[in-house]
């Protein structure tokens, strides 16, 4: 198994794993935010802002994998 083949196998799997992790994280985050909103609708805007910022941080992890994939894509031959 050479370098290119390893990369070709690992890149999609890596993105998938990153997406799974982010998905779980987003799920936890969304659940927490929804519960909080249901419990205290009066602070809804604050929770929403915090939620969106948190989403941004979590989602960035998958995006890093995505960008890494594009940087390394050229080395698969």
């Amino acid at each position, binding site marked *: 198994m050479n370098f290119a083949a390893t990369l070709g196998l690992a890149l999609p799997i890596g993105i998938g794993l990153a997406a799974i992790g982010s998905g779980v994280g987003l799920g936890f985050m969304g659940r927490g935010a929804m519960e909080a909103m249901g419990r205290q609708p009066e602070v809804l*805007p*604050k929770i929403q*802002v915090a939620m*969106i*910022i948190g*989403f*941004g941080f979590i*989602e*960035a992890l998958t*995006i*890093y994998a*995505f*960008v890494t994939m*594009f*940087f390394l*894509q*050229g*080395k*698969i*031959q």
Partner: protein
Amino acid sequence: MTPLIRNENAATNPLARAIWMSWLAAFALAGLLLPRTPGIALAIVAGQSLMAINFFFLDKLVKLFTHAMLPGTGHRQMPGRFFAYASLKVVLVYGGAFTLIRTHAVPFLPLVGGLSLPLLVLFLQSLMRAAGYAASPLARRAPQTAATSGNAAKLAASFFILALLAIPALGHASDHEAEPVVLAQHDPAQPTTPANPEAAQSEAAATAHGEAAVGEHAGAEHAEFEGGEAHLPNWVVILNDYFPDNPVVHWMHENEYLVFAWLAGLVFLVVVWIAMRNPTLVPGQLQNGIEWIVESMEDVCGGMLGKHLPKYFPFIMAIFFYILTMNLIGIIPGFKSSTSTLDVTLALALITFLYVQINGIINLGPLGYLDHLAGSPRDIVGFAMLPVMIPVHILGELVKPVSLSCRLFGNIFGEDTLIVVFVGVAALALKASLTALAVPPMAGITALFMLLQTLTAIVQALIFSLLTTVYLYMMLPHEEHAHGEAGHEHA
């Protein structure tokens, strides 16, 4: 000091604001030029500092002069400080400029450029004021909120500066393209001038990733992008097909990100101008929309920054609107999001980074800033951890622009690629005369993804500006945030 002089602080004084922005511009320019031409970067910063010193003394002189001449103040003669300032100004500014030019320590033209940077900013600022942005409709409508007063002027001015600042990064991008040596070494078939639009397109795409790969695998990258990553044609590409020999079109084709970034700025300015041309108490649709955006952002950012909001709000909104316009313009067929290249997002993120760090130094003071970087050690354990904490915090600061730029680039680029793939499937079906079977569902899916793209465009602009706000908030004096969480925010 008398109230006349004390009232002029940085937030209200347009001159101070212009100098401040030109510092920002000079450092951004210098930072981008430093790896290639350190001499030019040095000259720009030198010119900028000379002019800033010049304006500093000029400001002081004019204030002292007008104050002495003011009727009713009692003293009619110049204070001694006036002459001290005047002689200091002559020695420092003119002496400095003369020495720099005579000794050829720095190249002449960039020095002049640096010298004229504050003047350029002042010119743009006064242009915006003349265009009527100073008389803010928001201020007239809601005078009780301090944050909105005069924001439109600052907003427009900051916006212009941002548009200007995106240029060096794009120049950097075309530098890669203008270097056939590096590319040709690995791939002899690489056309030095992009003859067919497809090769040029993939070359532009390779440029976006050129930072990492241009050194060793440029040829391989080029080959990869031929198949892997096509862009939908935009009107610049189409124009280039029809007028391949026109130098202007050729330049536009090479710098299409720059063209679309300018276009986005222009669109935004025109929309705001139309909306705010005749501000009314009962706002029309467009005015209402823009005011709604500004006011909701003000609420959100005000929750974090509190009384510091008026100082930072123009920058945050300028970033927000600029990114939003650039993102949204890509949805229109035939146009392209400038944010789908790492060069533009990196430029934006670097500007934000510099802005945050400089504001941190100003807010915390140099010592307080170092203390912040060291993680505010207050006990023996804290001081013992210094060798570990300082690199960790510096790394944490440096990761911010990388994460900001990669997030924006990845999201927008990913959405673009998704749509290209689905359109590509539809095009394949066209070729295989399965049109009736495949095109309608594909068109439906593409339309759905375009809705998603709209959502991404708005959310990403929001996240970028909100994270800027969070970073600015972290750089506020420490006693102002809750003490318990001050230590954990950098994790």
